[in-house]
């Protein structure tokens, strides 16, 4: 009998927990007047690790290079900023509770030439992620994460599907059929989360004036944090350097 009471107590606690989470992780969407912006670059200091070719399947068209750390050399015009630019890092304002609305267009995760494109995709919590397969062979999308339940979906050649992730966290993605294929789904709590492109640049606009903690995450290099004060209608430049 004790076991049963324990059980119902747990269910009660769980409901309480759900109500609590809904309250704690709420992000209020609205319009932002006179918002500032945060922009900058993510750098990689030093010689980048070599990108090694991964085992390829006979059905895959070409040798695929590892994408753990992808950097590009700065263009000639960027004198004084000789450090390599780091792609596929996600910059996010981690403590914002209120601000602009989410984008209405759903992000896409494609599988093309036996590579996930992009390597890191940012998707709003509870929002739709479009899954594509641009190859003529079968791929699947198998996620591993803690807060969201595991998802395992096959995408037919030239097929399309979609998925949703309710809880904000970083979800690891693989294709079981081609074991080297990796991607990351960054499930974001607010619209102030952006992935850096090949040039290592990022920009977040319509940020309400205030002081925030900005975090950058990269799959291999980890996390870095910075305090940023945003003023109305002004751009705040910051940079992150990984080694």
């Amino acid at each position, binding site marked *: 009998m004790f076991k049963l009471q324990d059980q119902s107590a747990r269910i009660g606690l*769980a409901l309480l*927990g759900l109500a609590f989470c809904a309250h704690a992780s709420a992000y209020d969407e609205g319009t932002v007047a006179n918002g500032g912006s945060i922009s900058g670059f993510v750098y990689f200091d030093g010689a980048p690790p070599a990108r090694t070719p991964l085992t390829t399947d006979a059905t895959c068209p070409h040798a695929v290079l590892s994408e753990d750390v992808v950097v590009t050399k700065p263009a000639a015009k960027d004198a004084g900023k000789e450090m390599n630019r780091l792609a596929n890092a996600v910059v996010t304002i981690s403590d914002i509770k209120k601000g602009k609305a989410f984008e209405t267009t759903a992000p896409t995760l494609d599988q093309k030439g036996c590579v996930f494109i992009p390597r890191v995709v940012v998707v709003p919590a509870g929002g739709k992620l479009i899954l594509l397969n641009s190859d003529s062979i079968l791929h699947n999308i198998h996620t591993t994460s*803690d807060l969201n339940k595991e*998802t395992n979906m096959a995408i037919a050649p030239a097929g*399309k599907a979609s998925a949703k992730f309710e809880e904000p966290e970083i979800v690891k993605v693989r294709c079981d059929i081609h074991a080297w294929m990796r991607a990351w789904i960054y499930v974001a709590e607010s619209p102030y989360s952006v992935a850096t492109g090949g040039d290592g640049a990022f920009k977040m606009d319509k940020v309400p004036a205030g002081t925030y903690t900005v975090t950058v995450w990269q799959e291999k290099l980890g996390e870095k944090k910075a305090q940023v004060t945003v003023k109305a209608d002004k751009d705040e430049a910051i940079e992150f350097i990984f080694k």
Partner: protein
Amino acid sequence: MKSSLRIFAAVCLISLIFTALWADVRAEDAKKAEIQPAEAPKEAPKVLMPPLEVSIEKGMCLYIANCAACHGPCGLGDGMAIIALKNRPRNFRDEQFHWVSSDDGNASLGDLARTIRFGRREAEMPAFPYLLDEDVRSLDLYVRSVNRDGVLVKLTQKLAGKPKMTPERIAGLATKQTKPGTEVPWSRPSTGYQTDTSKGRALFSANCASCHGVDGRGNGEALKNAKDSDGNPIIVKARDLVGETFHGGSQPIEIFRRIRSGISGTIMPAQKSLSDDEVWQLVQYVQRLSKYRSAQ
């Protein structure tokens, strides 16, 4: 002759006595009935059946009586009967429900009800046709709570101490990950789909052959290099669709659900990028592959 007459007379006499006694009783009943109406409620009760009693307590009793022999007293799949079984019964605490038909990989109410009512004969799970609807729902509650306990333990080990991870939040996540799923809607196959096998064959080689093999023998190329999420090689086996029985069931709709929703907790993915008609073509092809097709 004489003796049979005597017996006949005796029977007549006895029945006469009984009839007389019965009449007395009836008369008394009638008297009571005459008195009764004044005390009885004016309206007759409208509910003829007792209300459905669905509770986790009832589920536990039913579990002990019907399930524990194979699935074990604590649901770990280690009941006494396993010495006689070829397949290991489901461990409700540490494994996911495999035979799902939902969108999110969680077993729906219907999934567990079908498994309990009709069994999974190919996987040695017997049918329990004598259980009432309320019994099945009660069992669903109990078995799901065992599953949730297991998920809660795992999540707590992984998440305790991390920022924002209060025990209440972890409990909330465990509830969310084990709540009944919503079934994926499906439509009936279009007429004449069974006459054309070439489409099914083409779909099979494009969507299934990488694991199940071109001939369906479960010897696909993809699984030879299979790795887990940390990149360590693992041994995974796809079902030999020719020589083995289908554990999720061999009826067309059961195969349809297996393709559409996958097998939760295994490498078999859910196929949501094909149309209903394309999945039916695959169902038909897979049924034809099986050497057990004549028995179906």
